[in-house]
């Protein structure tokens, strides 16, 4: 049954993930690798994982994908009425939402994580670019990647929350980039950042489960 739920969620979100992958493949990577391979001494900003352009781009694609996935799984399914069909299956409501959240978080992380890993492997391969590379150079990018589910969870909670006014309903989504930045600014080291990020994400999850159990599906 869990397998069926995961299959359904993955299959439903596949078109959105495909769009994100196309955006990554078509726009960023060919361009970035081309610049890295052709850089000169005055262009040190293009050193892989020293430049911030990769982070910015992944932030845009990963964040946008997370928001799209979160809304699709909640507001989308509510508006199509299929949530009534899903919630009447003989399974605990928490199982349904856990499957949805697990698939959403994993896909959000994969959309950004696979390109980062690919880029890092490329950068770690000798002879591909004329600049130094150490794996520790990727830490900041991985920390950013770890914070991406905030966008997904913010959108998920906003899509699930009942609210008459869009502004108040979207509060969790508006809070996500602020928390994202806050966790970036208050950086005491990777471990602290990871723990703080997990705590914020846990708070989002608790709110999601509370809303999922208490809201009306009308």
């Amino acid at each position, binding site marked *: 049954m869990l397998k*069926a739920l995961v*299959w359904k969620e993955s*299959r439903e979100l596949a078109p959105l993930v495909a769009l994100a992958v196309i955006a990554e493949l078509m726009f960023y990577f060919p361009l970035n690798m081309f610049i890295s391979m052709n850089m000169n001494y005055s262009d040190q900003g293009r050193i892989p994982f020293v430049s911030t352009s990769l982070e910015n781009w992944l932030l845009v694609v990963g964040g946008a994908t997370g928001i799209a996935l979160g809304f699709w799984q909640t507001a989308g399914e509510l508006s199509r*009425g*299929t949530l*009534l069909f899903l*919630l009447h299956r*003989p*399974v605990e409501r928490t199982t349904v939402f856990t499957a949805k959240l697990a698939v959403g978080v994993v896909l959000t992380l994969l959309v950004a994580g696979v390109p980062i890993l690919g880029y890092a492997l490329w950068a770690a391969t000798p002879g591909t670019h004329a600049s130094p590379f150490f794996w520790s150079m990727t830490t900041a990018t991985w920390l950013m990647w770890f914070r991406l589910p905030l966008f997904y969870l913010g959108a998920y909670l906003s899509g699930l929350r009942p609210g008459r006014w869009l502004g108040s309903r979207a509060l969790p989504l508006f809070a996500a980039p602020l928390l994202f930045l806050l966790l970036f600014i208050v950086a005491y080291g990777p471990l602290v950042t990871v723990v703080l990020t997990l705590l914020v994400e846990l708070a989002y999850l608790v709110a999601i489960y509370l809303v999922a159990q208490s809201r009306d*599906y009308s």
Partner: protein
Amino acid sequence: MSDAIVIEGLTKYYGPRCVVNTVNLRVPAGCVYGFLGRNGAGKSTLVKMLMGMVQPDAGSSKLLGDDSSSLTPDTRARVAYLAEGHPLYRWMTVAQATRFTQAFYAPERWHGRFLDEILDHFRISPKSKMGRLSNGQRAQVSLALALAPDPELLVLDDPTLGLDTVVRRDFLESMIHLIQRSGRTIFFSSHILSDVERVADRIGILVDGVLRVDCPTDTFKAALRRVVLEFSGSVPRFPDCEGLVSQRQIGNRLEIVVVNYGEVHRELAEQLGAIHVEEVEMNLEDAFISYTRGETRPLPSFDREPLRC
């Protein structure tokens, strides 16, 4: 006989508006219960509260002895629910929807062959995409999926909504044939009386959130009378009394609809000075319309002036 559905004081507000008002209802096991009401009467909200999709503001309900607000997976497996509009995943094929639904039920509960036979009866290919099916076909797939786990209780929320007359008739006839087996309880809401009349042993009528009728279908039909009072002069209002459902003025006549029309009502009619009193039997549809229409403004009459074409 035990009750498959028990509703006690169920109430729901949307903002200041009370959409379901202190509804009490019991549906015995094995009964086919038609739940009627006009659009917006609160039927869907009540059905959703029954299914645990909407939380009541007051009162409670039980399905097969299990509290609606916390239905266990075991109880859900014994109850089929067809939501309004037959929501199914449009990107799935019928075969995919079948496999997906089947995954939630124990193998001994799932009657795959029966489901295939229903789909075959409706001439729906398992390879068809849900998004390409007509509303009627989607309703048929929904029904097939709902019946495959052999539920003890079926809750159908306006299952014929949005279907044209022919498809609706076909769907209902198939539904009656397929779902009626001994001991199975069916609770279905509709705003179309003829749909209910054909199937239901018992009916309930919800008017503005209040359950005004809960009785066997024949009893309802027999108890309601339309009485036409004719006056020579101005038409007075019929005084409020027990059993009075509605009254409306048409020209110099006053039409009243009364439950259990009797001596008390006859005396009141005489006291009003009616020159002619006529009792008219009502068919179920007229009875339902009278019951749910409520108070109306007087209709204009052309009696006094000739029509000009």
